[in-house]
């Protein structure tokens, strides 16, 4: 068991979210908007998709040493996907193809040389004659996988149904609940079918060095999630603390904090990130002995990236919170607390903080998708994650020249597009639902 820095922070974050959830359970004014979220079909569907992505990311965050002899660090997800990881071809191959992308000089059994597409080492190697058998084989395996997925879902569902006999009605009561079950069904079927098929084929093809694209894009999920969540975790304390202090105390505290965030804001964020990442690179190059393993080094760089993104992105939320606190401190209940001699720290904690929480929540979910998108752009400019880290940005970066090939190598781009789009779309839709539920101005209309 090896705990990388980002792993530790991710699990810390999970614990914090769980604690926040417990706290919110007890607060009626926070439960009401949540009920609105849970009754929204789109919100719940996107939440299911998000949770699915998160669970993959969490599986990918439990690292251990592959074996006591080697120095390789792998995660639970890597362990499960060992066939995918080890099915390395020579170079490109199209999705579900049994042949290589490039022509090669082959020597047949009779000793003659011929020029043609060689068979893949792993993809479709169980087929005798791929041309005639492939379509049928794929169809059979696909339907089998779908059936198994459906079966798994049914077992799970029946188990739940019989265990929660008292709550049976509620399981299927609302449209949102039925939609959630449908979504879980779809996800479990497709996942099972994909897992089944990926053992025999390269479902999304292979890239230039012959690595399975499906594996790469699944591994990229963790990177996207880490960037989206850890950055928020770093940004939140800064934004909340400074925003509330500036709004509450005003005077010179306000001046100093405003000065700091205007200065930071005025530096173009891409350039600040670039400058910081360059510095990190220099630092790491000078302290090579501290980063023995590639995984550890890539992980440090990922953490640094989150840190820097956090430092550049807290200013927006800080300004919002400052404005809101300025309004809140004139409210009667705050003045009453002051008149009664409540300590200032207590006022901040009991009266101001809970009343700006909805702004914090809304901006957290809104920022998530833009951070995932930003990662891709930064990786493209080479100031994002480490080149050895699996990420959608690195996939796009590696694949952008492939569109010029003939025939077009489209699968790397398509794979990263598909997964990234799904994650960001789900995040955007969920963010909209949360905002509609928690924003008091919007809540009035609905």
């Amino acid at each position, binding site marked *: 068991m090896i705990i990388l820095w980002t792993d530790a922070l991710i699990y810390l974050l999970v614990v914090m979210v769980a604690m926040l959830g417990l706290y919110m359970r007890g607060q009626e004014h926070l439960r009401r908007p949540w009920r609105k979220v849970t009754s929204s079909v789109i919100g719940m569907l996107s939440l299911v998709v998000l949770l699915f992505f998160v669970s993959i990311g969490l599986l990918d965050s439990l690292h251990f040493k592959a074996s006591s002899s080697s120095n390789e660090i792998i995660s639970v997800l890597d362990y499960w996907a060992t066939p995918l990881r080890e099915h390395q071809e020579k170079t490109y191959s199209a999705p579900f193809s049994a042949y290589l992308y490039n022509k090669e000089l082959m020597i047949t059994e009779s000793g003659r040389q011929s020029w043609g597409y060689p068979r893949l080492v792993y993809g479709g190697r169980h087929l005798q004659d791929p041309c005639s058998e492939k379509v049928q084989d794929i169809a059979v395996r696909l339907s089998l996988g779908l059936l198994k997925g459906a079966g798994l879902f049914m077992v799970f569902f029946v188990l739940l149904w019989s265990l929660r006999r008292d709550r049976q009605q509620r399981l299927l009561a609302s449209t949102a609940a039925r939609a959630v079950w449908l979504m879980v069904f779809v996800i479990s079927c497709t996942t099972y079918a994909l897992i089944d098929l990926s053992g025999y084929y390269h479902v999304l093809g292979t890239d230039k060095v012959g690595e399975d694209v499906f594996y790469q894009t699944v591994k990229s999920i963790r990177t996207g999630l880490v960037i989206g969540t850890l950055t928020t975790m770093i940004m939140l304390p800064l934004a909340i603390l400074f925003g509330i202090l500036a709004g509450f105390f005003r005077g010179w505290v306000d001046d100093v904090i405003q000065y700091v965030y205007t*200065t930071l804001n005025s530096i173009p964020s891409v350039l600040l990130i670039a400058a910081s990442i360059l510095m990190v690179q220099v630092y790491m190059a000078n302290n090579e002995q501290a980063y023995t393993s590639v995984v550890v080094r890539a992980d440090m760089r990922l953490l640094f990236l989150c840190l820097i993104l956090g430092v550049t992105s807290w200013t927006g939320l800080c300004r919002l919170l400052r404005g809101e606190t300025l309004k809140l401190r004139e409210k009667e209940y705050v003045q009453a607390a002051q008149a009664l001699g409540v300590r200032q720290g207590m006022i901040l904690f009991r009266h101001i903080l809970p009343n700006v929480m909805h702004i914090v929540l809304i901006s957290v979910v809104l920022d998530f998708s833009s951070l995932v998108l930003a990662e891709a752009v930064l990786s493209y400019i080479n100031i994002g994650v480490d080149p050895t880290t699996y990420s959608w940005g690195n996939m796009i970066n590696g694949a*952008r020249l492939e569109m010029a090939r003939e025939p077009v190598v489209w699968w790397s781009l398509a794979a990263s597009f598909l997964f990234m789009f799904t994650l960001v779309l789900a995040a955007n839709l969920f963010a909209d639902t949360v905002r509609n539920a928690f924003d008091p101005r919007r809540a009035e209309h609905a």
Partner: protein
Amino acid sequence: MIQYIIRRLLYAVPLLIGVNVLTFVLFFIVNSPDDMARMQLGQKYVTEQAVQNWKRQRGYDLPLLWNAQKKDGGQITETIFFQKSVGLFLFDFGISDSGRNIGADIKQRMWPSLALALPSLLVGLLVNISAALLMVLFRNSYLEVGGIVLCVILMSVSSLFYIIGGQFLIGKLLKLVPISGYDDGLNAIKFLLLPVLISVVSGIGSGARWYRTLFLEEVEQDYVRTARAKGLSEIRSLFSHVLGNAMIPILTGVVVILPLLFMGSLILESFFSIPGLGSYTIDAINRQDFAIVRAMVFLGSVLYILGLLLTDISYTLVDPRVRLS
């Protein structure tokens, strides 16, 4: 008014000093010039002599803040901070690590950046506002729901895919415009069509949604209801009342980014190999040319602060309720 502008300009001075000190700390104190030299020359097999030469050629061999060996003010002027950072205030960007004059480069590369950024901004503004107006005009209908869904979908696609997809579809398959490149004068137009189109399309999602919320806030105001009650058609009230009043946030939102247009677009320019400031910056980042990155950081913050100033001034011009204080 002039007094107000002068006061705002003075307020910008501490900000610029802050930016300057921050970049100085980042580039020279967190990592010493020795580290940079080793990074540039290759990590391990570098002689001490080569490092010293590299530093002397670029003027990094001076002490950081205080030169104790010099006299008569030389203690301050003969330092890295004075030579490399103070010059930025006078827009003297110095020489890049590869030996080119940064100021001249910037002057030359500013115009292609502007030629791309300005049309993108204007066309984008027009398209976004029209789309938002349409959605508001047909509010509470399936057309609006469809529009919002489309916006969210467009928002969820990474800008990189718009670029790659656009280049592939329009440049390679349809062969309507060249895939990338740039030319002087009017010949540039055919190279600029595609990047402008792509930047407009990739901005529609978030832009139209943003303007829609602006318009919706105005639509619910009393004066719009009154206008409708006295018999004004929906379209008239939308254009004369809603659009007119929403112009204030729209205008100020545009003004703040106006100076930053000079900086160009990092990704678009490098994808379409347009020789603007954006691709200049990216090249510098990839070559790890710290002098250029430092100059661009400073230039960017100057332009941002200028944008803030222009915003405040434009507020007072378009909204008579705002008084200078």
